[in-house]
């Protein structure tokens, strides 16, 4: 599975944005937010004129006086690559939940429905936010791939709610690992790094909630994918049984035991590992 971000044509990207706006039913006030956020990021990235922006998310409002970007070698292109990778995953999650909510009778009304609806809401906003930031970097947001959440017929998430939840768990746990793996690549830009971390912990909250909805614990024990998870999702959990942090086998400095240590630290996945998982669902 290969995604070539470079070959994306401008018209394709524009078409794609319109398609997305249509898909996500963006309202006029949503577009206003979109514009002001864009300005905000331009400001933060030092690409735009100085101005006051009331709509900057609080957490991003602090203008770095000592922005590491200026001192570091990561180019806007490097940063945009990382964000386009994240965008691909957010497209996947957003579409997965949107389709689930659009499928009559799939998600039980009440608790389950409101949980899935909130998760979808976040993923759709992550898509918007990432596209805005990528734009602000002077790069082109990657187009939304075509997804097949049956993975060629292996799964039936829209006919079987338990399978839908199992895939949701896999996607959320993957999201957590993916953002973690990219944090270092955003290190040169404190504002982007912080925003990515702020998405990362939201994915972790989602993961915990979906796991608990499935009757599991919110945290990952050893490298276990958990009960009733399809074997194909094992790649999401491989390596989570790591005991060594920063060169220290944590079981040698703490009495909590190996199981406890593996639960206490979530492990990253690199881009290729993530794309192999996501690639199962990209046509």
């Amino acid at each position, binding site marked *: 599975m290969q995604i070539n971000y470079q070959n994306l044509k401008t018209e394709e990207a524009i078409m794609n944005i319109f398609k997305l706006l249509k898909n996500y039913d963006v309202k006029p006030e949503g577009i206003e937010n979109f514009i002001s956020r864009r300005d905000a990021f331009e400001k933060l990235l030092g690409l735009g004129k100085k101005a006051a922006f009331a709509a900057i998310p609080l957490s991003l409002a602090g203008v770095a006086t000592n922005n590491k970007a200026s001192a570091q070698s990561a180019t806007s292109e490097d940063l945009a690559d990382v964000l386009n990778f994240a965008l691909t995953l957010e497209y996947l999650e957003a579409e997965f939940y949107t389709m689930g909510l659009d499928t009559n009778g799939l998600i039980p009304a009440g608790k389950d429905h409101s949980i899935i609806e909130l998760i979808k809401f976040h993923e759709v906003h992550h898509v918007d936010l990432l596209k805005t930031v990528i734009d602000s970097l002077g790069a082109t947001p990657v187009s939304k791939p075509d997804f097949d959440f049956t993975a060629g017929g292996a799964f039936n998430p829209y006919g079987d709610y338990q399978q839908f939840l199992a895939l949701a768990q896999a996607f959320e746990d993957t999201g957590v690992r993916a953002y973690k793996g990219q944090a*270092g690549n955003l290190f040169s830009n404190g504002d982007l790094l912080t925003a990515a*971390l*702020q998405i*990362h912990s939201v994915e972790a*909250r989602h993961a915990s909630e979906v796991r608990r909805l499935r009757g599991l614990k919110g945290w990952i024990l050893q490298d276990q994918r958990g009960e009733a998870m399809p074997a194909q999702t094992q790649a999401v959990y491989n390596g989570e049984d790591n005991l060594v*942090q920063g060169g220290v086998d*944590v079981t040698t*400095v703490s009495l909590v035991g190996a199981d*406890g240590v593996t639960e206490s*630290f979530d492990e990253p996945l690199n881009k290729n590992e993530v794309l192999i998982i996501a690639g199962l669902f990209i046509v």
Partner: protein
Amino acid sequence: MSKTSKSKVEAPLDFRLNGSRRSFIKYGGATLAASGLLISGCEHLEQILPDKGKGKPEGHPRPVNLGSGDTGILNYAYALEQLEAAFYIEVVNMPYNGIPEEEMVIMEDLRKHEVAHRDFLKAALGDKAIISLSFDFSSVDFSNRQSVLSTAKTFEDLGVAAYNGAGRLFESTDLLLIAGKIVSVEGRHAAAIRSVLDEDSRSFAGSDVIDGDGLDRAFKPEKVLEAASPFILNKINANQLPKS
């Protein structure tokens, strides 16, 4: 694990083997010397001198200085993990009235995780670790479910916001990654506590903590320490922490 991409004149965390006698006594030399993640040298002399607070009246534990650079940020994290660990140890020691099995398991798990974080950070800091802090949980009614779970919710959400805000303050990408491994577990905790405590099924990622862009909170250390200060008896000096 990749090498740090940055270098500083005064590398706060170095990955060389460390010959500190104190660490050997504390953890057993063989294991940690082999593991090699220890900070060598003593930046803050007061931390290896005898406790000056010994002669002081009770209730006035020694003030602590978190230090500067990556050491300061790790000590900041270590202080928060000490707080969380101490809290859950207390909760598990005297569970609230009528605690259901599911919630007892959560409390035991959270105790385990926070203790692991605490112990790891202490080991990573070696001689530069701040002392064990003293806590005041008198505002918590440990026999009362609402009181305990509300406090847990505050701590977990605060932990998430603290690590999210601290990421950019690190100099070492290795430490950033480790902080990332911890913060997502705090996020998992926060969601679980909220989902057992709050009636609103959307609370696990509620709009009180997640903004309209789908972003969690990120706090600067001053804000976090201010929120934590009612629970911490030691006066904490964070003046030397990196600002950006």
